[in-house]
Every structure is written in C-alpha cells, then in structure tokens.
C-alpha cells in the first residue's frame, strides 16, 4: 500500500532553487520583475511555515469557498459508458464555480503579507478573474483584470460578475485577443506597478515561483481526493483525469498522487478542431520545449520561437503554453497527456447535463469525455476519478451557439 498523505507540509515541497522541474521552468522575465519574484518566493516560503497564515486560509476555504468539495458518483454516466465507475471531484461546487478560488485566496493573503496594496490578474474563461475579484473584495484589495476581447465576448456572465464585485475589467485588443494576450498585458502592467502591486497569476505557468505557488494552493484538490477515496472506497482510484489549460486544476489534482502513489494520471488538452497548427491548444501533445511567459516548457511555437495562434472552443484552455511541471511529468512518463476535440467536449457538456443534472464548464468537459473513453476500456470494479474543475453557466450561451441549438 502506498503512503496516502505526504508527511512533509505540501507548501514546503517544490522545484530546485532555480525553479526548475528537470530542465523545465526557470525565470525568463525582464530584469524589472526579477526582484519581485524573489520577494514573492521568500514571502511564500515564510507563509508556508506560518500557522496563522495557514489557518486564515483554511477558514476562508471552509467557510467562504465551502470546502471540502464532494466526491460524487456519476451513476448514469457510468451506466452510459458501460465500464468503470466514474466519480467526480466537485470543484464546480466551490464558491465562484471553479477551482480557481483555491489559488486566488492564497495569493491574495500573500499580497497582504507582502504589504502590497493592489492586485492585477489575467483571465481566459473569466473564472480566475471572478475568483480574483472575489478574493480581493473579501480582503479589501483593489483589483484589475486583463481579459482578451474575444473572451470578453464569449464569457459575458463572468465579465458582469467581476464588475459587480468591484473589479475593473480591461479588455485586451492585441494579438489573438485571448488568454495569452491577457497574460502579456498583465505582465506589462506589473512592469510599471511592481512596487505596490501583486500579480495573481491564475494557472501553474509563468516564471518561478508561480508554478509552484499555484500548484501548492491547488493541491488541496488532490489531498482531499486521496482522503475521500480512502473513506469511500477504502483505497485509491484506479485512474485520475483532469483537463489541462495552463495546468492548475490538473497540477493540484495530480501533485499529491505524483508524490505518494503509482495511480495512473491523465491530463486532457484542448484538441480544438483537429491536429493542424492553429486549430488546437495542445502543447504537450503537439508542441516542443520553448519559452513563453517566463518559463521553459512545452509550447506551440514556430521554428523561430514565435508563439503560434491556438484555438479551443473553451476559453480557459485556449492557451499555447502549459505549466513547466506538466512538461516534466510528461517527459518522465509519470502523467499521460491526451486531447479532446471541441465537438467531443461540447457533447460531453450535454451528456453530463442530461444524465447527471450537472452543467459543467467546457474546460472540465474535456476531462469528462476522456473519462467516458477510459471507463469503456475498464472493468466495473475500477474507479475513475475526474476533476470537475468548474461549472458551466458561463458557457451556456456559447455552447448553444456552437451546437446550433435554439434558445
């Protein structure tokens, strides 16, 4: 029997002193930001040792977010797939409707700890934006969110929510007007504001120490899952699946399993319209190592290092890069990465809605689709655990439009 819970504090484990996961990761940012990254690294290391910080975060996670999130048996989905049992880790039931809040509360508390007085964030699907806006409202911090103009269009409900929460949403009109451009603009803001502003990066990407900090704050997903599996099944699941955009829900789900078990792990990237460059957002499947947004990781770029345009129906996966630790897990073979097309994800949204009464995010639907494929190949005794990263209210209009459904 493998060890169930990590002995060391999860906040204390991490990459090497250079921020490397094997060859991946590191810090590739303009010199203006290097000092702030060192400051953040130190502040985080101190917070990880500080029981007051931990207990403040835990209370917020329990009473504001509603943790622990349930483990749910998707019985009709299981019957439909006709194989292994499909269980859902319900991050969609978190306050604000996705896993993103686990990270934003942690980083907002870090902001206060560092004595910084303003927060900026990027967002794709708008979930990280809403989660940042929420954490900032709760802790009394002014917040500005950068969001690609295309995403502003396709994730309107979240734009409204952010504004309601008192956050300023700044649409980004450069480039492909999606998540990658929003990250660029947030970084540019940070270049000028770094003295008093913290950048709450929303995924396990970017320069060190962001990938580690985001992973650690999200690792509560995997820790709870291990504990709940022990209680419910008396053992660990036979397979764990999560969708991968930048990779934060997957890193949080996988990390405790990676550390302590040999449970098979599957990350699902956005297969978009197909394998032609520009039609998908699957760097681990189709990309090569390169630099984007401050770290070395698998990325979709051309032979000159120029970032490729990407596509996914799901705004939260529509990103050409991925967190460096996933690149390390891929190359080490610890995690298998696959992809799911737009069409399959759209169908999975409908299937889950009509069989379980759960309207999930388009992002999460990528993992649900893969779970059904895996279930078909496995016996009824097997347990597949899916990270259901978010709810789908934000996508309802876009899913309807893409499926040509009548309103």
């Amino acid at each position, binding site marked *: 029997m493998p060890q169930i819970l990590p002995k060391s504090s999860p906040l204390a484990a991490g990459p090497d002193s*250079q921020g490397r996961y094997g060859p991946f990761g*590191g*810090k*590739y*940012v*303009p*010199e*203006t*930001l*290097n*000092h*702030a990254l060192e400051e953040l690294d130190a502040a985080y290391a101190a917070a990880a040792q500080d029981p007051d910080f931990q207990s403040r975060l835990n209370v917020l996670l329990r009473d504001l977010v509603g943790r622990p999130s349930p483990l749910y048996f998707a019985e009709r989905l299981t019957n439909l797939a006709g194989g292994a049992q499909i269980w859902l880790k319900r991050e969609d039931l978190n306050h604000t409707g996705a896993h993103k809040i686990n990270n934003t509360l942690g980083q907002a508390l870090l902001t206060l700890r560092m004595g910084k007085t303003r927060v900026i964030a990027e967002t794709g699907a708008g979930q990280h934006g809403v989660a940042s806006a929420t954490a900032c409202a709760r802790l009394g911090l002014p917040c500005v969110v950068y969001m690609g103009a295309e995403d502003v269009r396709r994730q309107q409900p979240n734009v409204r929510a952010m504004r309601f929460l008192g956050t300023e949403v700044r649409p980004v009109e*450069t*480039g492909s007007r999606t998540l*990658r451009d929003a990250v*660029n603009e947030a*970084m*540019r803001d940070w*270049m*000028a504001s*770094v*003295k008093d502003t913290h950048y709450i990066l929303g995924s396990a990407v970017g320069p060190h120490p962001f990938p580690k900090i985001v992973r650690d704050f999200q690792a509560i997903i995997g820790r709870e899952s291990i504990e709940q599996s022990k209680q419910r099944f008396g053992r660990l699941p036979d397979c764990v699946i999560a969708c991968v955009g930048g990779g934060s829900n997957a890193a949080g789900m996988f990390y405790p399993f990676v550390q302590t078990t040999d449970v098979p792990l599957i990350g699902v990237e956005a297969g978009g319209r197909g394998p032609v460059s520009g039609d998908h957002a699957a760097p681990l499947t189709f990309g090569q190592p*390169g*630099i*984007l*947004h*401050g770290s*070395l990781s698998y990325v979709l*770029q051309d*032979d*000159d*290092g*120029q*970032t490729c345009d990407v596509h996914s129906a799901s705004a939260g996966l529509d990103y050409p890069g991925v967190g460096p630790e996933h690149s390390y897990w891929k190359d080490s073979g610890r995690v298998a990465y696959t992809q799911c097309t737009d069409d399959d994800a759209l169908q999975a949204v409908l299937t889950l809605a009509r069989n379980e009464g759960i309207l999930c995010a388009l992002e999460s639907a990528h993992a649900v689709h893969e779970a059904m494929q895996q279930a078909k190949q496995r016996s009824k005794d097997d347990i597949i655990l899916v990270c259901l990263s978010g709810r789908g209210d934000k996508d309802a209009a876009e899913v309807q439009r893409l499926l040509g459904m009548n309103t």
Partner: protein
Amino acid sequence: MRSISAALSEFASQQQTAIMPFVTAGDPDLAFTEELLRRLDGLQPGLIEIGFPYSDPIADGPVIQASYTRALASQLRVDQIFESIGRVRPDLTQPLVAMVSYAIVLRYGSERFLEKARSAGFSGLIVPDFLWESEDPLRTLCLASGLDLIPLITPTTPPDRVSRIAQQASGFIYYVSVAGVTGERTGLPQDLQRNLAHLRRESPVPVCVGFGISQPGQVRELRSHCDGVIVGSAIVKRIAALSDGDASTRPNRKLVLDEIANFVADLIRAGNS
C-alpha cells in the same frame, strides 16, 4: 568590425554621449530597414540597436509591440534578418547590437544563433528576458564567440545584484530608466541621475540609458550622467507612419527616412557638450 567598448570610449574621450537608435528589423520590410541603417550609420551616432520582432514582447509598450506585429505579419524569419544585416553590413561603420528575446535564441539554438549573429556583423546582444545568473550557457557562449552580452539593470535591481552584474559585464550596461515598458515619456524619473551616478561608480564598462527617452532636451539633461542614450519608440513611431491609416495619406519612404535622420541628428547634437 569595431568593438562596442572601442566605439564608446572614443565618444567618451571626445566628451560626447553616444546615441543608440533602435530600429525594428523588417518594419515595414527589410529593404526599408537596410536603407534606414545606412542613413543612421552615416550620422555616426555611436551604436545601432536592431530589434528582432517577437510575438510576445512583455517589456515593450504599444509602439514597439505594433512594429513587431507589422514585421511578423509579412512572415519575417530570423534567417532573413541575418541575411539582410549581412548584406548591409559592409556599408556600415557603427557597431550593431541585436535586441532579441531568449525565446527566439533558444528555439533557434543558442550556438547557431550566436554564430549567425557574429557572421552577419553584430557586435553584441541584448536579451531582455535572460536571467544574468541563469545556468543556461548563453553567457559563456557569447564570451566564446566574441559577442558582448549586454546586461540590463533597472531601478528595481537590488544594490548587491547591481555590483555583481556590473563586475561581469562586457560592452556596456543597459540601464532601464524606469520600472515599466518601453515607450515615450515626457519627463525623466527623479532618481535617474542619482541611480546613474551610483551605477557608474560600480561599473567598469560604459553605462547607457534607455526606456522613455525621446527628446533632445532629455539627452542634454542626461549627457553628463551616462555614456550613451538609447532611443526606440520615438523612431519606431515615425516608421509606423508608413503603415498607418489608408495608403493614399501615407508619407513616402524618402520623407520618413529624412525625418528620422533629422531627428537622430538632433539627438546627436544634444549629446555633444
């Protein structure tokens, strides 16, 4: 090919501040860039900086971002830039410095990139997203190929790091005048002269200042405090006129070349004490 330090010490010995015009390669096309380099070189500004367009330039403001986008829109390749510089290099006398993202260098292959840069006629490289303390071999590779890797120091760089980087620098130190992205600014930061004075005491190599400098008046204010001044957005903005708006209202190339040459000549005059 004259070395960067030789060029800058010649300026210093004549009590002159070098001007370092920045141009984006391939904006709006390489033929224009080549013509512009000849004109700028004729003014003997000191050094010329050539930007390699990059898709995600985090340190750049809207003007330089837009010029990168324009250059890349016509499928500009790194090899074409090297070929173009190799073509025009025999007509030039001033050292050339490449401004290039590490994303590009790494993907191209650091060794191969440096070899091509050297044979095209570059004297040095500014790689804004390269961490000076990184374990990546870029610094040693530059040393081996005889190219200066120019470090950047900013107002946010802690003093101990300033000393450490300064001691290892070759060519010159690029001092970034403000925390922020490239782009024109009206005034100069209050603490700039003090920061420059400190840095010059620490540095065995010349110190040049960039970011936000666009006017002869600013050059006059700075000239006794640094060895050179880098001017980018104010030049690139004038090149943008060749692409902005509709074709019927655009100036012709000769007009833009003249305008930039006059502007840089004014900056050079301001750098002469």
